[in-house]
């Protein structure tokens, strides 16, 4: 009967990049699927343009030009509320609606929820896989950070549904990675998977034995990753810009995006070299700054330290000392940072490794899990845990824990409820997740209403409620009236999630967010390129008019006007032609400007050197 079901792909829905993978039937090994241009990483960026939606690299190129219509790092908002994200909102060009419940992003004059944005990324990967196989893809395994709570997992599952995917399993990223390693080379023993991605951190400790991958403990922080490294560097550059140029760019979304991307690029370069330089042309001046790995390390040290406490807690929960680990595996692009590697090695007393590409290994593992579910692999089994304790609110706002953290899933707990007033027909429960004693310090997941209880004197009804955390780490609640044996109906009000009806509506509406077709996409890109060149030229005219004569300046201005005239025309070839012409007209001025900037930079450096010398 499995033969009739469609293929299951594995998807890593990342903060920064997303990937799709499958198991190659010939070799039995997982492979990532590239797009038409051969790229395997799809930037998790979505841009809402008038002509349609852009995803991936095309959307990422819109970030600087159209920051207010372009959404990135949306994973940080999945399953969260307005209060949770206030701190970091200043880093994002878009705003969110100040209201209770699920976050609504205000992007380019419309409202979208994080699952809808993620669905656009998922749909693009789905189409990539369909183009690769030449057949419809309807089922997927999607990975999430191990430390994701119920709401965040549910939001991911909702995103899959909106994208037209049956999400057959939500699997934890570090454990998925361990499966990928398991297929290749992993020996039996105790391993720690340290997973630092773009926006999330996980540590998972597993026992691998005879094909069983048993997670002993997991911990993490769903708001800590490479994005945060970029932010501290960016804040540092903003301070420097204020000090050296008297420029406050903190309210300029375009400049902030340029700075953010430049910070990210510099951070990446500093993993390979000791020093690097940033040159950013702003409207009125060109910013040039050298920075060193040591400076970056001082900035990110507190963030790297913040990953170590969860590691120690996971070890304690697993009942292990650091020395008892056989292997430490690094997953996620941020583990390329040398400081991260050093601190991990110090903590575990073992050289960590990342023999499989840390960007791809999670998607490869998702493909392995997909193949297990499809019946293609029968000797491997993942036994994962629930990362957070699950409890219900009791009198006085105290949490009564029903399922402790690090319990192997699936798992269930039963609790008896009754009525407190004569004739009461509805009982409500408040379900929370977290490690604190008071409800207000934990994460509210949902309120459940048990309805249709037969009117009886107070305390007479006996309602048995079963809380079941399934293999996805997602809560299911069932209730039964013991006297009658009949199932009680439950109404669920998710605190930070979508209700079923919302998801159904979004599946319908999702076609409105269809990816722009190829010709529309090319037109958007051509216009984008035209705008970028125009901006650069206008800046050059402001900064370098004194370097050349009136004739040349007039010629350049004419070329700018000629391009502007056709920008809205929709004639792609004509726009491109005039963009090239403008570029050509400005070549000499650009060179002159470059020379003078370089001289300026060299000059100021010499001054700095003189000041530093004793």
């Amino acid at each position, binding site marked *: 009967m499995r033969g009739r*079901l469609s293929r299951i792909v594995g998807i890593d829905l990342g903060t920064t990049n997303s990937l799709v993978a499958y198991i190659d039937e010939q070799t039995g090994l997982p492979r990532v699927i590239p797009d038409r241009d051969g790229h395997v990483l799809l930037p998790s960026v979505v841009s809402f343009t008038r002509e349609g939606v852009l995803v991936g690299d095309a959307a990422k190129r819109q970030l600087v030009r159209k920051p207010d219509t372009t959404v990135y790092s949306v994973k940080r908002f999945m399953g969260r509320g307005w209060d949770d994200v206030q701190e970091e909102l200043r880093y994002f060009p878009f705003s969110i609606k100040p209201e209770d419940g699920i976050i609504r992003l205000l992007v380019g004059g419309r409202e979208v929820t994080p699952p809808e944005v993620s669905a656009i990324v998922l749909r693009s990967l789905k189409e990539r896989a369909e183009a690769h196989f030449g057949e419809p893809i309807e089922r997927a395994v999607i990975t999430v950070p191990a430390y994701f709570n119920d709401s965040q997992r549910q939001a991911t599952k909702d995103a899959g549904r909106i994208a037209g995917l049956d999400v*057959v399993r939500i699997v934890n990223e570090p454990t998925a990675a361990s499966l990928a390693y398991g297929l290749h080379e992993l020996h039996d023993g105790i391993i720690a998977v340290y997973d630092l991605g773009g926006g999330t951190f996980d540590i998972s400790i597993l026992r691998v034995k005879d094909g069983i991958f048993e997670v002993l403990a997991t911990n993490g922080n769903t708001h800590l990753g490479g994005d945060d490294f970029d932010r501290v560097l960016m804040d540092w550059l903003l301070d420097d810009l204020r000090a050296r140029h008297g420029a406050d760019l903190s309210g300029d979304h375009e400049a902030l995006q340029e700075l953010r991307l430049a910070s990210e690029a510099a951070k990446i370069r500093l993993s390979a070299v000791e020093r690097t330089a940033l040159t950013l042309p702003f409207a009125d001046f060109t910013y040039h700054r050298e920075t060193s790995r040591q400076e970056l390390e001082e900035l990110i040290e507190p963030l790297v330290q913040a990953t170590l406490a969860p590691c120690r807690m996971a070890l304690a*929960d697993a009942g292990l000392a650091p020395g008892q680990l056989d292997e430490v595996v690094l997953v996620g692009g941020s583990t390329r940072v040398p400081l991260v590697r050093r601190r991990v090695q110090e903590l575990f007393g073992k050289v960590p490794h990342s023999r499989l590409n840390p960007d791809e290994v999670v998607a490869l593992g998702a493909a392995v899990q997909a193949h297990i579910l499809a019946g293609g692999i029968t000797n491997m*089994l993942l036994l994962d845990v629930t990362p957070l304790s699950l409890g219900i609110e009791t009198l006085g706002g105290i949490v009564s824990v029903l399922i402790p953290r690090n319990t192997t899933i699936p*798992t269930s707990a039963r609790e008896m409820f009754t009525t407190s007033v004569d004739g009461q027909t509805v009982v409500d429960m408040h379900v929370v997740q977290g490690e604190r004693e008071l409800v207000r310090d934990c994460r509210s997941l949902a309120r459940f209403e048990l309805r249709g209880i037969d009117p009886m004197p107070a305390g007479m009804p006996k309602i048995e409620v079963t809380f079941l955390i399934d*293999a996805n780490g997602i809560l299911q609640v069932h209730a039964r009236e013991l006297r009658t044996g009949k199932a009680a109906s439950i109404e669920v009000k998710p605190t930070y999630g979508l209700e079923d009806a919302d998801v159904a509506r979004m599946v319908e509406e999702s076609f409105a967010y269809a990816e722009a077709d190829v010709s529309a996409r090319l037109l958007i890109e051509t216009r984008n390129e035209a705008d970028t060149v125009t901006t650069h030229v206008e800046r050059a005219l402001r900064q370098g008019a004194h370097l050349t004569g009136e004739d040349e300046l007039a010629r350049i201005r004419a070329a700018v006007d000629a391009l502007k005239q056709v920008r809205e025309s929709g004639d792609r070839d004509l726009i491109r032609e005039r963009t090239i012409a403008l570029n050509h007209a400005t070549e000499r001025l650009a060179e002159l400007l470059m020379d003078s900037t370089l001289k300026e930079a060299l000059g100021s450096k010499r001054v700095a050197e003189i000041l530093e010398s004793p």
Partner: protein
Amino acid sequence: MNYLEVFGLPRRLAIDADELQRRFYALSRQHHPDFHQGATAEEQAKALESSALVNAAYRTLRDPIARIEYLLRLEEGRETAEGTTVKPKAPPELLEEMFEIQEALQEATAGGLGAAARATLLAQRERLRQRYQAEERRLCGTLSQAWDNAPAGDRQSVLAALREALATRAYLRTVINDLSVALGEDEGSLVSNRRH
């Protein structure tokens, strides 16, 4: 089916950890939902339930203390949920010392904690920890063996002894935690989510 029956084990407290783990892995392979994806919705629901039962049983049985608490519950015919229902009770021979500790604790909450008082509390906590560990050793050692070897007629008295030792342990644990809080240390210092 009770947790021991899930693993095909008799109602005894001596359980070989490696053997238990081996059976846990075998049962997981049999029941885990991953291996029942092609089945009907009804069979999948059953796999989910069986798998949850296997996991709960393993979690309880692999921990020698949780195992004893579970045995008591079984023998008393109570609901088979996890969690302790044994009420903490002060061991009689420690009553005097407990009284002193309570006084010291009250002083600590009333005013600050002086260096001398702090040293006394630390020493007292260390003594209680040793007593706590001794109680655990007794529970998992001689008392567990006593249960496994008891003739049918003596079982009630062994159960009573197990119950009393658990009550003492629970009491010591509470006092140690109180002392840790008074000393300004982390409440979780006793590691409540320990695995074996």
